[in-house]
């Protein structure tokens, strides 16, 4: 198996866009898994709509290029249909923290075995620069030229409060670390949430800001929920603070999809069952 995992599609991300790093990292992780024997046809990528989502065109794996905000329910259906598949979501921050936030929380609640990679550029990229739920307070975008009056959400904290069993943060300018975290997410049995601080070169270039503040988590007990919660709240996506990169939390819990390992009934078996169900309604 020596597929390149990259399609021939012309890439249309802007120069300097952090999505390249995510594409690269994800490709590398999938390639490594395939190298180790994981069947490549068992990988499925689900994306929303936005700049991030173009990754569906670029990675040469099964993909469902869905609609804005709906990666999770599509991915959930795929995983429940076949729990052997390795299902990865690439979502945008507008996509999955605004339009589709409820699905995200339910994926965490259910602990379904998906890997959610959020391309969190903190802006609507493809629709040319409006604020998102993670834009900092007073962000001036095209729908809020005078600045927002809303504090951002803190997605890792929200995910912890929702029951996610893996919660992590990565950054597109820390490629090796990003790959490590994605690998960890894919290997994690259960719902793995990765908020990736993704540079948007065109509408919200935070490179300098992040470079000055990010640090890798060390000496942190990621099995301890309370320390995870504290780490997650260290930076609130708005005010100045050190920005932790790494896995805040990880635990193993029963997975929702496990109970859907069901073998389908054959055509004839089914007809018999249906007949039996009907016969319950008459003299037995």
């Amino acid at each position, binding site marked *: 198996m020596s597929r390149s995992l990259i*399609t021939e*599609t012309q890439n249309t991300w802007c120069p300097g866009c952090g999505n390249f790093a995510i594409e690269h990292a994800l490709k590398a992780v999938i390639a490594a898994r395939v190298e180790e024997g994981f*069947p490549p*046809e*068992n990988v*499925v990528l*689900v994306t929303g*709509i936005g700049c991030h989502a*173009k990754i*569906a*065109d670029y990675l*040469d*794996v*099964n*993909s*469902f*290029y*869905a*609609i804005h905000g*709906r990666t*999770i*329910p*599509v*991915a*959930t*259906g*795929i*995983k*429940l*249909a*076949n729990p*052997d*598949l390795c299902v990865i979501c690439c979502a945008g921050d507008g996509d999955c923290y605004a339009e589709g936030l*409820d*699905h995200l929380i*339910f994926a965490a609640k259910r602990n379904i075995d998906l890997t959610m990679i959020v391309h969190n550029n903190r802006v609507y990229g493809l629709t040319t620069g409006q604020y998102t739920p993670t834009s900092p307070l007073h962000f001036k975008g095209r729908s809020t030229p005078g600045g927002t009056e809303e504090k951002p959400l803190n997605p890792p904290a929200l995910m912890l409060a929702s029951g996610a069993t893996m919660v992590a943060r990565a950054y597109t300018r820390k490629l090796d670390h990003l790959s490590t975290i994605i690998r960890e997410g894919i290997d994690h049995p259960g719902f793995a949430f990765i908020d990736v601080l993704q540079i948007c070169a065109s509408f919200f270039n935070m490179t300098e800001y992040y470079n000055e503040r990010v640090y890798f988590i060390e000496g942190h007990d990621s099995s301890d929920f309370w320390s995870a919660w504290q780490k997650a709240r260290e930076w609130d996506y708005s005010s100045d603070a050190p920005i932790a990169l790494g896995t805040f939390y990880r635990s193993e819990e029963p997975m929702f999809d496990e109970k*859907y390992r*069901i*073998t*389908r*009934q054959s*055509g004839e078996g*089914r*007809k018999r*069952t*249906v*007949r*039996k*169900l*009907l*016969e*319950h*309604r*008459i*003299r*037995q």
Partner: protein
Amino acid sequence: MEDFSVLIGGKAGDGINRAGFVIGRILSRIGYRIYMYYDYPSLIRGGHNFTIVRASRHAGIASHHVSVDCILALDHATLLRHAGRRTPATITIVNSDSVKAENHAGGLAVPLDTITKEEGGIPIMANSCLIGAFCHATGIPWDVVGTVLDEEMPQETEKNIAIARRGFDAVPEQFILPKGEAPEVPLVTGNEAIGLGLLQAGLDAYVSYPMTPSSGILHYLAEVAGETSLKVIHPESEIAVMLMAQGFAFAGSRTAVGTSGGGFCLMTEGVSMAGMTEVPVTIVVSMRPGPSTGVPTYTAQGDLAFILSAGQGEFPRFVIAPADPAQAFEWSGRALNLSWKYQVPSFILVDKTLSEGTFSFDPEEPEWTGEEPIPRWDGTHPYHRYAEGEGGVSPFCPVPTTGVVVKVNSYAHDEDGITTEDPDRVVRLVEKRMKKSRGMQAEIDALDPVLVSGDPTAATAILCWGTTSGICREVGDIIGLRVVQPVVLSPFPAVALRDALAGVSRIISVEDNAGGQLASLAAAHGITISAQILRYDGRPHALEELRDRVMGVKA
């Protein structure tokens, strides 16, 4: 006796629907065909619920009468509200524990609650007592009552039978309902028939968020999921429902969803996605009066125009509106198969009357289609998810398949599912969908999409769709009119419809809506309606009511 009707009334929480069902089972056991109408407001305890169980020697009944032969009143409200249904011959049985003697209106008084308590039963078991009393009053032998209760009451069976016996003994026989000749067939609701039809055609997953009147499908399928290896999922919202269904189908699972109008609104974006991704999905919409929350536990046919065009952009869809459980069973299976054969959304459009009505269902009547083969990839590499296939349908290859990458896409895309904005490719996709439309039309035209009943030679025809077709058939038989029902509404079977109407000089359309939506659709296909009978108070017509209205415009 050709026809016998019994009304059971009481409060929500009294188990009226259940009692009606058991009486239906008893009447079915003694040789009658059954239709049961269930009327209840949107509340959990109190209010007024009633069912009318109609038993007939004839198959195919699908309506209730205004007047009934027997009234079983758990409370005073039942007597008051349904006074107009009594004839001099009507037998009334009254719960004397809740209705004062001066209000018994000549009915047989049975102290249902007292008896139930004496036998150590809980309040809801008063129904068993009432059923016993009803059976003795109508001359139904005790052994029938006993065996049906034994089958229908798996819990506390003894106690229920004992209570029923007390009721049986508490009233004298009033007349003897003769045995009928029909062999016993199952009683099912429309919702159950849909569920069973989908199951026998290979359903792998049912995804739904509860919404009246569709919830019965969810409840029934959840109940039988274990026996049938079905995956039943109740997610966070209808948006999730529709998108999950697409995920299931992408991974090869035959999937259906169910909802009502408001929930369906939330699915429209996903329906349009299915139009572009060509991932199959079967959608049951059960109608109730709208707009909006409307009158949630009542009936309507107000969503046809919406379903026909829901979702942005243009893409083909099947819309099928069965009239009764036999059609629901047969056509639900077909809808699932057609959706996979053409990789398009298929709709089963029903309403509260069918969904929650209970009908005698002869499993031998409908066709059992089973899971039909679909166009599959022949294995020649490379696989193109959106390859030009016959009639615009691209051969299907399941995920996972070794060496194959399957990409579906909500954007306009090329043969491999990669996004495109190229004008020629965009045109190709549009024309691919148009090609499918033509194939779907031919398929439907070959499937007998327009049913004719009543007097097929009559020059006056009733044109109807969905559940109202059942009662129209009966009216057609009574007055001697042709009754024409397009079971399929998209692709519209215009040719078959014109054939079915050949020789007709007057068309009377009957619909449970205010806009005359089928009438408009027919008009758009050049078929002119002479008179419209519309009803929009949430209630289905009683047989006499519709007969009289049809007589009024028949001229």
